[in-house]
């Protein structure tokens, strides 16, 4: 079983829907340790991304990554725009001319996306950023890459756990780092949207199987 363009398209639509449902919560989290725009940023970005995919109808993973990534980059701004944008651009490049990704190929694409986020943002795990959800999610996916749906479900659980664990951390990157010790005790908003990203992927691939 593999993730084809239809499944990937569904992933982006489901990501948009989850963001829309959680928009206020993301903004509230960003109010606590940031600047209260993460909900609006992600809503604007994922709407643009889903619309762009629907409109341009990409045929390959590379086209898909570009359609999503460019839409995110050019509609969000802020920190999350370049980061999520780079994630999808690199995801697409790794998937290259393929029109579907089997487990190992999807794992490689996700890893490439994560690497892109790391090289763009220069954050390391434990610095209270989206990396703390993305990195364990990709690792969990790789561990079960044989079955994409199972792997995605495991990745979603790992992303959520990673996000939950950001609560205790002191931010070292991004806007929240200005808070120093005061940033501890709050979830990182970007890690929460990253958990939604992997939960959307799991749903997209589960529906695929159903």
């Amino acid at each position, binding site marked *: 079983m593999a993730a084809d363009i239809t499944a990937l398209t569904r992933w982006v639509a489901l990501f948009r829907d989850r963001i829309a449902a959680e928009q206020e919560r993301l903004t509230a989290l960003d109010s606590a340790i*940031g*600047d209260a*725009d993460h909900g*609006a940023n992600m809503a604007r970005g994922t709407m643009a991304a889903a619309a762009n995919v629907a409109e341009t109808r990409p045929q390959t993973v590379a086209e898909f990554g570009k359609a999503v990534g460019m839409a995110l*980059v050019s509609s969000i701004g*802020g920190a999350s*725009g370049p980061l999520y944008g780079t994630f999808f651009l690199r995801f697409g490049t790794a998937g290259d001319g393929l029109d579907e990704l089997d487990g190992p190929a999807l794992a490689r694409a996700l890893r490439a996306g994560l690497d892109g986020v790391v090289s763009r943002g220069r954050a390391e795990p434990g610095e209270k950023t989206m990396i703390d959800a993305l990195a364990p999610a990709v690792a969990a996916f790789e561990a079960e890459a044989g079955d994409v749906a199972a792997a995605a479900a495991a990745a979603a659980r790992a992303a959520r756990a990673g996000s939950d664990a950001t609560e205790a951390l002191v931010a070292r*990157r991004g*806007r929240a780092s200005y808070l120093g010790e*005061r940033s501890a005790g709050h979830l990182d908003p970007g890690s929460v949207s990253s958990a939604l990203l992997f939960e959307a992927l799991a749903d997209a691939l589960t529906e695929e199987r159903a």
Partner: protein
Amino acid sequence: MKKLIGEPGAVVADALVGIEAALPQVRVDHQNRVVLRATPKDEGKVALVSGGGSGHEPLHGGFVGFGMLDAACAGEVFTSPTPDQVLAATTAVDRGAGVVHIVKNYTGDVMNFEMAAELAEGASVASVLVHDDVAVEDSTYTAGRRGVGLTVLMEKIAGAAAEEGRPLDEVVRVAEKVSAQGRSMGVALTSGTVPAAGRPTFDLPDDEMEVGVGIHGEPGRHREKLAPAPRIAEMLVEPVLADLPSGGEPVIAMLNGMGGSPLLELYLMYGEVAKLLEKAGVPVARTLVGNYITSLDMAGCSLTLLRADDELLRLWDAPVETPGLRWGR
């Protein structure tokens, strides 16, 4: 939320319509949300592009014009502009001598300007970071100091250097000198309200203030009981002086309003600041008091000091003709 707005999501686009209508000296690329000089600068001169989240007006759009910026990219409120916007601005203003990006040190701004510079093949682009806010510890383990009030001074001084026809590396050198020699610190009495959020970004009890606040309402060093102006002045002057490069040069001082404090109070605050600077033996060569880099309707103020040698003072005094800052023509 009590605001003079239409659709909360359309505030920036709507304000750009007003800016274009109000200011004959600029034109607006609405597609890309870029404010440009109506009359482009001469061929062969270095161009300056800045930008950032909206909500800090007159920064940046109000500083587009002769002797200052060539273009300003307007992001959503408090959200950095996207690489497309910066790229469009960069391409539009490049007069063959290179483009300087003046970037306030926020992760989002840094990354978006960086991506734009990567995309701007053809143009030679240099970036200068503003990171002057002493409220935040500067360490390699954090995102570093935030960029705040010094941005205004850098845009003016680097703009003058570019207008004189200095080459790219010279304009960058001057801008870096400003960055090295300037520091800022702010205080908030109330929170601003982002239109899309609809309520104040942070809650501040009626008798407290946020010392070291950021221009997006980011928390600062600590909260404490609201104090009288002389004491607030100490809270600004002391940390700025502690971190300001020492030296015999005089300073350019900016006492900036955050948007919601009356000018009467800003003058009063500057009176207190001036007393402390005199006591500390710091001569003030030039002064700016008013709303220059705001945080929507936040009440409060910030102090920026820049040690200015003769070169910086001369560039400061050079003619400038923008909606937000104008003299000499």
